[in-house]
């Protein structure tokens, strides 16, 4: 690539700046509990909206005969969403305060759009849960919390919304605190903060409200600014162990002969000279070099796209996985997994589909349905099928063995999607292993 004619300074101090971090969060909860309004309020009150965007939502609100500006229009940008006042699909928004950058996934609440909520939550560090305080925790809210927890989101900021309609009654708030406490404990969520708010009026969103003098906890923004960040972990896989993994995406042929294997590092790091094993073949070799377009590196960190040269000539294709020798993944073609099923047609034993795991797509058959997850009782129930939006445990058998980790130790090598062969739609999100519950 040709460069700027005059080289600009290399950014000076900014390149080393360590003062900002990145939090990815998703809004979850039932329809009409106020998720999009809260995000609109949060962005409006922190002055993240451009003047022309504020003008546009004011005009759009007026044209629909709404008495005041509808803040949900900040993220509900589709024609059908504004017409019905609902969210259909995830909107991604980007925001920054002096301390932190945020990637916000504003998710839909409708049962029929659960697949879109799962999409938004799958890369989140934190879930901002909206609960309508006038109605309490609905089944759909519990479903969303269960899915988020299974996906590995272990921080919840729960907004007890519409407290203005409850005259800021502390007992309504306390009821949600009690119910959330037990839910979070059973699901193994490590932190859960409940905040009484009015998204519509902005109470306790950015500004502390004096409507609830009995509450002395954080505002929503305080909670978001002080939450644990793990931007890399949620995006690139949380590994409890130290073992590196490189799912091979593409084989790069080197000028003058030889090959390097391109992919994104998960876990790790890998270092030059590390002994590695190529899976599922099970062949041993060592890392000869780690290459990037900017030159070779002595070590490759988690989340980095690289290409790797190996010491020995081995037949390696897209879909294979290069692993460090410590704690390699299990190679298996028959395993248990937790799945969220998204198709109208129920999932039953004997169903045949395609499965995509890391960079490999392989035929798969459902050997058995082990049970469905009851989001109200938080228990597994015997079942012979998974209905649309059910969470369940199944046993799968694949045509090609997979190098699989449990989802709880690795979001990348422990996850997969199922693909319907006829419609080629993505019909399920899968996580290797069973959910862990703490009753």
């Amino acid at each position, binding site marked *: *690539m*040709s*460069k700027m004619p005059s080289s600009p300074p290399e*950014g000076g101090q*900014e390149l080393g*700046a360590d*003062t*900002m*971090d*990145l939090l990815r969060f998703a809004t979850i909860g039932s329809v009409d509990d106020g998720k999009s309004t809260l995000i609109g309020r949060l962005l409006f009150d922190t*002055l993240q909206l451009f*003047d*022309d*965007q504020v003008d546009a939502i004011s005009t759009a609100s007026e*044209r629909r005969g709404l008495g005041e500006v509808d803040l949900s229009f900040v993220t509900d*940008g589709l024609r059908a969403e*504004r017409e019905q006042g609902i969210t*259909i*699909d*995830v*909107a991604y*928004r980007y925001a*920054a305060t*002096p*301390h932190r*950058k945020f990637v916000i996934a504003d998710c839909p609440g409708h049962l029929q759009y659960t697949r*879109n909520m799962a*999409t938004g939550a*799958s*890369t989140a560090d934190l879930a901002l849960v909206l609960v309508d305080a006038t109605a309490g925790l609905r089944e759909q809210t519990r479903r969303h919390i269960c899915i988020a927890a299974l996906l590995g989101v272990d921080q919840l900021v729960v907004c007890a919304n519409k407290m203005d309609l409850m005259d800021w009654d502390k007992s309504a708030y306390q009821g949600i605190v009690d119910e959330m*406490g037990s839910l979070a404990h059973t699901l193994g969520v490590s*932190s*859960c903060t409940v905040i009484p708010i009015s998204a519509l009026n902005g109470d306790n969103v*950015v*500004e502390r409200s004096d409507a609830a003098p009995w509450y002395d*906890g*954080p*505002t929503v*923004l*305080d*909670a978001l*600014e*002080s939450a644990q*960040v*793990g*931007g*890399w972990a949620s995006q690139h896989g949380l590994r409890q162990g130290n073992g590196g993994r490189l799912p091979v995406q593409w084989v*790069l042929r*080197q000028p003058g002969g030889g090959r390097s294997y391109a992919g*994104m590092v998960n876990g790790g790091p890998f270092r030059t000279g590390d002994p590695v094993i190529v899976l599922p073949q099970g062949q041993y070799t060592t890392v000869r070099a780690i290459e*990037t377009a900017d030159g070779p590196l002595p070590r490759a960190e*988690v*989340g*980095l*796209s690289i290409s790797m040269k190996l010491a020995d000539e081995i037949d390696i294709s897209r879909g294979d996985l290069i692993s460090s020798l410590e704690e390699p993944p299990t190679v298996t073609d028959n395993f248990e997994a937790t799945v969220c099923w998204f198709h109208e047609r129920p999932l039953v034993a004997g169903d045949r589909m395609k499965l995509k795991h890391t960079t490999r797509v392989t035929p798969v058959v459902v050997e058995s349905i082990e049970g469905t997850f009851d989001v109200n009782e938080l228990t597994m129930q015997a079942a012979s099928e998974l209905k649309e939006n059910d969470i369940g445990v199944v046993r799968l058998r694949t045509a090609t063995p997979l190098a699989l980790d449990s989802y709880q130790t690795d979001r990348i090598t422990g996850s*997969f999607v199922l*693909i319907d062969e006829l419609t*080629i*739609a993505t019909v399920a*999100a899968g996580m290797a292993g069973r959910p862990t519950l703490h009753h």
Partner: protein
Amino acid sequence: MDSTATLGSADSRSVSSAAPRRAGQPDASVTALVRPFGHPLGHLDLLESLAIFIIREVAAESERPVLLFSGGKDSAVLLHLAAKAFKPGKIPFPVLHVDTGHNFPEVLAYRDAQVEAEGARLIVAKVQDSIDRGRVADPGPVASRNRLQTTTLLDAIREHRFDAAFGGARRDEDKARAKERVLSFRDSFGQWDPKRQRPELWQLYQGSVRPGEHLRAFPLSDFTELDVWQYIRRERIALPSIYYAHSRPVVERDGMLLAVSEWVSPEGSEVTEEAIVRYRTVGDATLTGAVRSEAATVEDIIREVSASRISERGATRGDDRFSETSMEDRKREGYF
């Protein structure tokens, strides 16, 4: 576990920052690069790495991919990333420019130089050819050809049997784009159906299509305008000169500054003025407005973008002003 307790990491920072904050202030902390906590890589490293991952994934899973290149800054970044993804090899797919015929000459010269520098094959699909073949009605010599591009683009995709097209669109650009998947499915009519998008979890980009259908792939989805400029600075990516402050004759129309050219001349009470301007986006010359700006370097632009109170497209794009859901309507038809 105590649900009322605040989060484990709560510290004095969250208290001192309780006042409303203004993102638009050009203070150092806003333009600073982000280094996610506890991670050895910076924010731009992670954005670059994910974009390269997406490009490799789509290139591997599709039969006939193509990269859509307009000569604008986002497509410049996209081309740069595609080159990085396959080094030391060449980009394993061609580059397609949908040419409205209403071009800034600097942009065409830039396009040819960049594509040649990368050793890529350039395909130009011309809106004029679609008009000449009677595929679309001729709106007249000076009218916008923005919407006509869709037909030209879809015809080119069919003619070359492309099954995946990379685009430089970003989610922070527009409220419809904010809703779109990284891999966005198009039916055999080229249409986007925002109500039936595929679930897209983790980094599992599922790119299967059937004959006649295709994907749009947006590796820059998570970049913001500021990220793009910081990345351009870091990678020293060359851009068409019109992105930097220069003097040119303009007329003010509908609150936008349009360059006087063979297609745009003063109407009614409009007067031509010589102004110091630059472009924040590059599109059809009849619809893309300039902004008054003295920003002559990348550094100046990063400061300017950080302080702006007007969004990138809001300031400069007449094509977004046709209606409230202008971008969604065009995307449904198969637009970029």
